[in-house]
Structures are given as structure tokens and as C-alpha cells.
């Protein structure tokens, strides 16, 4: 084995796993999270940091494509583990660990795969697994013959038979190209454009001549368009998809955000593979487990790692029915959350909803207040559930994901994440939709 073998064995002890949850397969995901921590492994936040890609459940066509793209982005040595049920988690992770040690296999893998980063032509918004790369490679695309109709998910609908030779960028929305919006280019005509009279809108001494009339960088990446920001100043608009594969994010939810700086000025929500493609999941999760999971996500996003770990332990104890451990963990979670004034100051004022706001968005009463209020009430409900001391208060419904865009518009990115995590979103919208439909 020698040195590289020893290095590999040492490395496998610190494996990082990118967990992809197919909507509905919460139980498998939680089991994976539980088991990888027990092995001393950690979850990865991005494909760049991942050694193992753990797909929990059977993804539908859209998510499959995303998963393949995530797989392409993993640096290697890389192992993919398709886990269809909680029962097979252990063996799947064992197999992954064994395969990770197989250095010759990874050497072959590294030689066979593409050597340069590239993005398939039909890249859509969520294409980067929610990681929102600004730069997609459209370099080899032939714009003259490009068929915009076939770009699944791209917002090119209005450009059917567009002739790029003499196109008018002023009306074009390139929203799909790496998420850039061309709409703000002041009616430039790049086909026969006149640089002398062109309004560069602040682009000072930019040299457009080398771009064959297309306003693109050599990588084929479209420029950002502009728009008025909330202070009334002209500012770039960048399109960034959040989800469906993003740490501490509701499974399957995709939020296509238009950003100015890091402020979300517009958003559009959807569910990956639409409603109904969730596949056979284990059914709706016990309420207390879901709440614990949501509390963990919120605490992790707020950056209090000890408290988040506490919520995670409470969740796992509840899941495996260990009531004493669950009660202990929940009590500790409750104390930690209640005592931390820093946490309060961090979450205070995030997505403050008063009675009028609740009515306007059609939200249930337990969403009232800011993220911190919702956190406290959630922990309180978990306590009631876990302690069994009082009857469970009647659940007055979760938050439908369709209202999320209205709620987060105008917030900056970090607050958007906290706001989404603080809401009692229907955890598995696809499954729920099937159930109700």
C-alpha cells in the first residue's frame, strides 16, 4: 500500500458527503446525516468539497439531470451512492468508503472525465445544483443556428426565430445564460452597431469590437443587465437560483432569485420535477421530527453550531423513538435557544410578520412575529410533543411554498435563507401535493 495507501485511509476518515434529498425521502436523508456523523464524516455544502454524492431516494428526470451535473462538478476521488431506503444507508456508506480507497479506480476516472470544466448547452437555472455559477460555458455554442426552443428551463420563450446577426439586445432577455439579464442594455443594436453613438451606460472604455457583435465574454457568458435598485440607483441584476441542492434548504424547492448586490429584488418559486414526481417516499414525517429538522436548519444558518448540533441530536432521538434522550436534548435545546441574547439579536427583525402581513399572504397564525419568535414557538411545540405533557395543539397548517417569493422579495440573501428556514414550509411539497390532489 505504501504512502498513498496510508494517505487514502487517513483521508477516508474525514470524508465529506453531499446529500441530495429527493422530495419525500426525508427519512433516508436523516439516516444518512446521522450515520455519517457517527463515522466522523461531515456533510459537504458544495460539490467542490464532496467526496461522496449521496442521493436519497429515486430522483425524477429534472433532479436526475441536476444530480449528474453535480457529479460532474465533484473534483474526485468521487463516489456516488444511490440510497433508496433508510435501511440501506449503512451498507451504501460502507461501499462508498471502500470504493474511495480504490486509488487506481479514481485514477482511471480522472483520466476519462472531461479535463476542462464545461457546462452542457441546455443548462437551466437550477443547473448548478443551486450553486448558481455565474459562469456557464456557452463558448462552443453557435448562436447563428441556436435553437432557443429546446433549452429546457431557459426563459427564451420570446425569441423563437431570432436572428442573432442583427439582434437587438434592448429587448432580449438572456435570463437563461448563466442567469444574466440582458434587458438593461439600453437598446443597443449589436448587429450593425455604431460604437460612436452607443450608450455604454457607464461602461466607460469597454471594447466591444472583439465580440462579434455579441455582448459576451469569451467564455460565452452574458453580461448582467441593469435596473433601478431600492435606492433608485442603476445596478446590475444577476439571476441566482437557490436550491434544490443547497445546505439547510427545503428539499426540492427552487427559488430563482434576481439579485441586485445581495438583495433579492424578484423571485420565483417552483418545485423540482413539479408536484407528483416525488416517488414512493415513506409518507409524511412525524411533526416533531420535522420541526426539529427545521430548527436545526435555522440554527445552522444563523451559525450557532452547538445549538444546531443539539437540535440534530433531538431530531435523531425522536426519530428512533428514544424518548429519554429526546427529552433531554429538547430541554437543552430550549435552554440554549432561550438564553442566547446573541441569537436573539441575530434573528430579531428577520421577516417580521404582523397580523396584517399574515392575512395578506394567507399564512397561519403561528408564523406571527420575526424569525426569533417563530423559533421559540417552534421549540415550545417540540417540547410539548416530546414531553407529552400537554396535548398537541391543533396544527393550523404549514406555509405553502408558492408564497415564498412574495415574502423574501426585498431581503438580502442571508436574511432570505433565515426567513425561509424560519417558516414552517410544507416540507415535501411534491408529496403533499400528491396527497392532497
Amino acid at each position: 500500500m505504501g504512502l498513498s495507501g496510508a494517505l487514502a485511509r487517513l483521508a477516508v476518515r474525514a470524508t465529506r458527503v453531499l446529500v441530495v434529498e429527493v422530495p419525500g425521502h426525508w427519512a433516508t436523508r436523516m439516516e444518512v446525516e446521522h450515520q455519517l456523523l457517527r463515522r466522523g464524516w461531515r456533510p459537504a455544502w458544495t460539490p467542490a468539497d464532496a467526496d461522496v454524492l449521496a442521493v436519497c431516494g429515486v430522483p425524477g428526470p429534472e433532479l436526475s439531470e441536476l444530480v449528474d451535473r453535480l457529479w460532474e462538478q465533484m473534483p474526485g476521488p468521487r463516489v456516488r451512492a444511490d440510497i433508496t431506503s433508510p435501511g440501506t444507508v449503512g451498507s451504501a456508506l460502507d461501499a462508498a468508503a471502500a470504493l474511495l480507497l480504490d486509488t487506481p479506480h479514481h485514477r482511471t476516472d480522472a483520466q476519462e472525465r472531461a479535463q476542462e470544466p464545461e457546462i452542457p448547452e441546455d443548462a437551466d437555472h437550477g443547473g448548478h445544483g443551486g450553486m448558481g455559477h455565474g459562469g456557464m460555458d456557452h463558448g462552443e455554442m453557435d448562436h447563428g443556428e441556436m435553437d432557443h426552443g429546446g433549452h429546457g428551463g431557459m426563459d427564451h420563450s420570446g425569441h423563437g426565430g431570432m436572428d442573432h446577426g442583427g439582434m437587438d439586445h434592448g429587448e432580449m432577455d438572456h435570463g437563461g445564460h448563466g442567469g444574466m439579464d440582458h434587458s438593461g442594455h439600453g437598446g443597443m443594436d449589436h448587429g450593425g452597431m455604431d460604437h460612436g453613438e452607443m450608450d455604454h451606460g457607464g461602461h466607460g472604455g469597454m471594447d466591444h469590437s472583439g465580440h462579434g457583435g455579441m455582448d459576451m465574454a469569451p467564455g460565452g457568458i452574458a453580461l448582467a443587465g441593469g435596473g433601478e435598485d431600492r435606492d433608485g440607483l442603476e445596478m446590475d441584476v444577476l439571476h441566482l437560483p437557490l436550491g434544490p441542492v443547497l445546505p439547510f434548504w427545503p428539499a426540492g424547492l427552487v427559488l430563482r432569485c434576481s439579485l441586485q448586490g445581495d438583495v433579492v429584488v424578484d423571485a420565483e418559486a417552483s418545485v423540482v420535477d413539479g408536484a407528483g414526481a416525488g416517488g414512493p417516499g415513506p409518507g409524511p414525517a412525524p411533526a416533531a421530527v420535522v420541526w426539529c429538522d427545521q430548527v436545526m436548519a435555522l440554527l445552522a444558518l444563523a451559525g450557532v453550531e452547538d445549538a444546531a448540533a443539539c437540535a440534530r441530536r433531538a431530531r435523531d432521538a425522536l426519530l428512533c423513538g428514544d424518548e429519554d434522550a429526546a427529552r433531554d436534548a429538547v430541554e437543552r435545546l430550549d435552554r440554549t435557544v432561550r438564553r442566547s441574547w446573541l441569537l436573539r439579536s441575530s434573528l430579531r427583525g428577520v421577516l417580521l410578520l404582523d397580523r396584517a402581513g399574515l392575512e395578506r399572504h394567507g399564512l397561519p397564525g403561528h408564523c406571527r412575529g420575526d424569525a426569533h419568535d417563530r423559533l421559540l414557538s417552534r421549540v415550545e411545540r417540540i417540547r410539548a410533543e416530546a414531553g407529552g405533557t400537554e396535548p398537541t395543539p391543533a396544527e393550523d397548517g404549514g406555509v405553502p411554498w408558492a408564497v415564498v417569493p412574495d415574502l423574501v422579495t426585498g431581503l438580502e440573501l442571508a436574511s432570505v435563507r433565515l426567513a425561509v428556514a424560519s417558516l414552517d414550509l410544507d416540507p415535501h411539497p411534491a408529496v403533499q401535493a400528491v396527497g392532497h390532489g
Partner: protein
Amino acid sequence: MLVGIVFWGLAVVAVAAGAAVFVVDSMARATYALALSFIAVGVQILLLGQSYLGIITILMMVMEMAVMAVYMVMFMGMNPALMPMDMTHGKKTAIGASAGVFVLLAAGALLVPWPERRGAPPEDLTRALGLEIMGEKMLVMAVVGPVMVATIVAGVVLAAHRTRYDRLGDDLRRRPADDPQPGGVGR
């Protein structure tokens, strides 16, 4: 000898990095090429024995370039796509002006009869430098600082379209203030 070589090497780096500002095709690279140029000059000042001036040059310039990169990207309106762009602008005037200034300064450096060194440098150079710059003019310096800060603050206040009445209401009693982005203190 070694110091001499390093000094001239740094001089080449400084000039080359300065030229690179106009050659590279990305704002980030131009900005940090300029930073590199300033760092080389800062180290040269260090080699001249003026440690305070040298280090403070590096400190100020790196900080300034970091902030400048922000403003450049902000005002030029660029996405992270690293759009290549020509970093020159108004070429004829600029070349004329810079050539003129260069000739003037170089001629000055070569033609002015530089004084011979008298005496030895003081023991504590930083202190001597401080006294030389500030000593006689402490009052002026003490006034100029606050005036500059006040100018900056006044400029921002005049430029912002929101006033305290927008924040705190017509009777200035609204608490907490109504801000598009609330701060962390809760004023």
C-alpha cells in the same frame, strides 16, 4: 550590493505592474496590478530606511485598492463573468498628459542639484518624521482631520435622499427607525 539589486528589482516590478494596469483586460487585475506596484514602492521606501512610511504606504494602498475594486465593479456594472475590457480611455490626451508629466518629473530628478547629505539620520526615524511633519503644524493637522471627516459625512448626508424624517417620522419619535436595511444596534 544585495540591497541595491533588490531595490532596482523592485523598481522594475513597480513600473511593470504600473504598466500592467493598462495592459490587462480585467478590472480586478488592473486594480491589483496597481496594488502590486504600490507594494513594490512601499518596500523600496522600507529599503531606504523609512520603515514607517514604507509600511504605511503598503497598508493604505492595499486597503484602498480593495475598496477601489468594490467601487469599480459597482460603477462599471459588471457581473462576475470577468468580462474582458479595455482599461484605457481617452488615449491621446492621456498619453500626452502622462508623457508630459513624466518628462517634467524625470527632468526635475536629473537636473535639480540634489543637496549633499549632512550629518547622520536621527536615532528614532519615525519620531523624527512625525515631528518634522506635524511638529510645527499640530493645530492645523488637528483641525484638518475632523474637517475632512465632517466633509465626508456631510457629503453622504446630502447625497442620501432619505432624511431623518423618513426614518423617524415627522415628529422624530418612531422607534425603531424605519430603514430599508435595519442595522445591528437597533436605533
